[in-house]
């Protein structure tokens, strides 16, 4: 037997109390680790989503910048339009390497799901868009055969949702015409997976949006100062300039504001749990007042009693922390679903990223804080005088 096993056996004395204390620490560790993982995962996924867009700047019709950002990342209704002639004007600028016009159209499909739903179509230029999205790979098929072809390319998830294969015909809501599925993309882990792509001209014709665009993606030449070019674009009438860096910063600053509040709540919950540990260990010291006195009379030094009580605190905190981390892993899927449900925008991919360094940092932080909380009861125990303890009636 040694101090560690003695401390462990001491905790077994009141199993229910120890279990509740560990549960308190586990819950707060769970919240803390999940939130830290969310912070990391969200930023990582958002960065990847934005980097995968293939262009640094997007022009949209003038409106709310947040709406524009959401539109670009997720698709949406209530779209604003800008004239197509803008493409030539922007493309001719010396800073521009390439442009790609896009027209997004949302149409209500009464046959989607049980009560119908909105289907989003993205009209893209078959020449320029694939160049911007160089990472796209086809699971089967290819891009459109002609600029006005009545053809569709489906993202991976869209193909699964619509249950379509190459060669299938699709009827668009609000149109009598059928369209041929010519390509199905491989999974990219971005919002493109859920997209239904059609030739730009076809979308303009089918949905009566001739010569209109919702977005113009712009890729700049190497070494061009993005901010300076954005200033130039602001001179264009009735357009909103949205840079990817701007979108990223806007969303991340919004998430950071929310994170400060949520982490503060988690920190308070954690502090409450630590005070719970402190209270549990302190109560246990008071209950064992005589016993600790006897240990001192049989040769225990104050530092050994301190160590024994401190080990009890560390066991409680580390045990709770490990349980919390296990919960974080086990329930990461459910936590992610909940977060996606409550957040207005969440990027694709892993939202909660639990890396080893994050786990180690959280474990160290929780255990160290617990150790700090354990100092008081350990000191109280170390200073018990054997005679006072033996005489007492506790």
């Amino acid at each position, binding site marked *: *037997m040694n*101090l560690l096993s003695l401390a462990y*056996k*001491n905790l077994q004395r009141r199993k229910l109390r120890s279990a509740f204390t560990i549960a308190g620490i586990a819950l707060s560790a769970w919240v803390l680790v999940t939130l830290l993982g969310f912070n990391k995962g969200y930023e990582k996924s958002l960065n990847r989503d934005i980097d995968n867009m293939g262009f640094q700047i997007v022009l949209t019709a003038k409106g709310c910048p947040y709406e524009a950002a959401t539109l670009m990342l997720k698709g949406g209704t209530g779209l604003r339009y800008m004239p197509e002639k803008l493409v030539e004007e922007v493309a001719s600028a010396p800073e521009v390497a390439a442009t790609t016009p896009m027209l997004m159209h949302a149409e209500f499909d009464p046959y989607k799901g049980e009560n119908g739903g909105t289907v989003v179509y993205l009209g893209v230029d078959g020449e320029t868009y694939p160049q911007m999205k160089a990472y796209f790979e086809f699971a089967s098929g290819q891009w459109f055969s002609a600029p006005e072809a009545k053809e569709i390319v489906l993202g991976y998830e869209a193909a699964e949702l619509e249950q379509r294969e190459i060669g299938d015909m699709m009827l668009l809501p609000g149109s009598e015409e059928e369209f041929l599925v010519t390509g199905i993309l491989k999974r990219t882990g971005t919002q493109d997976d859920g997209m239904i792509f059609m030739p730009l001209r076809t979308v303009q014709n089918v949905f009566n949006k001739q010569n209109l665009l919702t977005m113009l993606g712009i890729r700049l030449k190497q070494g061009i100062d993005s901010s300076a070019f954005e200033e130039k674009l602001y001179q264009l009438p009735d357009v909103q300039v949205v840079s990817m860096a701007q979108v990223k910063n806007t969303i991340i600053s919004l998430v950071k504001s929310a994170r400060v509040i949520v982490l503060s709540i988690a920190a308070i919950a954690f502090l409450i749990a630590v005070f719970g540990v402190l209270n549990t260990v302190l109560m246990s010291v008071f209950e064992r007042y005589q016993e600790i006195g006897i240990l001192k*009379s*049989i*040769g*225990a*030094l*104050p530092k050994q009693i301190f160590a024994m009580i401190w080990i009890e605190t560390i066991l409680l905190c580390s045990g709770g922390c490990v349980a919390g981390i296990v919960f974080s892993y086990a329930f990461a899927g459910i936590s992610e679903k909940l977060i996606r449900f409550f957040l207005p925008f969440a990027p694709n991919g892993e939202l909660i990223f639990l890396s080893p360094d994050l786990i180690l940092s959280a474990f160290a932080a929780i255990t160290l804080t617990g150790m700090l909380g354990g100092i008081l009861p350990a000191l109280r125990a170390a200073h018990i005088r054997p005679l006072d303890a033996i005489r007492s009636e506790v």
Partner: protein
Amino acid sequence: MTDMITIKNLTKIYRRGSEEIRAVDNLSFSVRAGEIVSITGPSGSGKTTLVNILGCLDNPTGGELSLQGREIFKDGLTLSEKELTLIRRQYFGYVFQKFFLLPTLTVLENITLPFVFGAGTNTDQTYIRELMTLLGIDKRANHLPSELSGGEMQRVAIARALATKPQVLIADEPTGNLDSKRTAEIKSLLSELNKRQNLTIILVTHDPDFARIADTVLEISDGRILSQK
């Protein structure tokens, strides 16, 4: 026999408000190695205070105490808490009226508990087994205290006190919680241990029968020695 413990003009004064209580009043005597000293007297006579000072669990207010010639207390000066702990580890084993066994530890774990804190050099398993056999608790090694009778628990407490082979056993009313049969058992056990191990035993008791096994009987009243036989 050499002197194990010597006290000179030992005094312990408690203050309760303006009242001064002399629990031990100018006592002087010696305890020889291998001697059994029984301290008797009415409640509140200062027996426990005296035995606690003799066992280095309490400090006197004045006077001197030496252990095998080493000065422990002298005129209000004492060793540090750490030094006193080391002295207690080296010289003493304690048995109290309450057994003070740790409820989550087995009999064997309770007995070897002093070794966890570095008392004694090594756990001498053969000696511990012999001790348990002598005390009649060898078959209870893996039982928890809650599974033992009062007499068995006190025997475990005695085994714990003797596990580190101390030179002096301090026993404060060791049979106070036991019936007459168990009391007789403990009494003969202490006598046996004294003979076998040349163990010095200082015991506080109300039981006049203990006088039969004691070499010296000190009767205390109001902190003073009334008689010494």
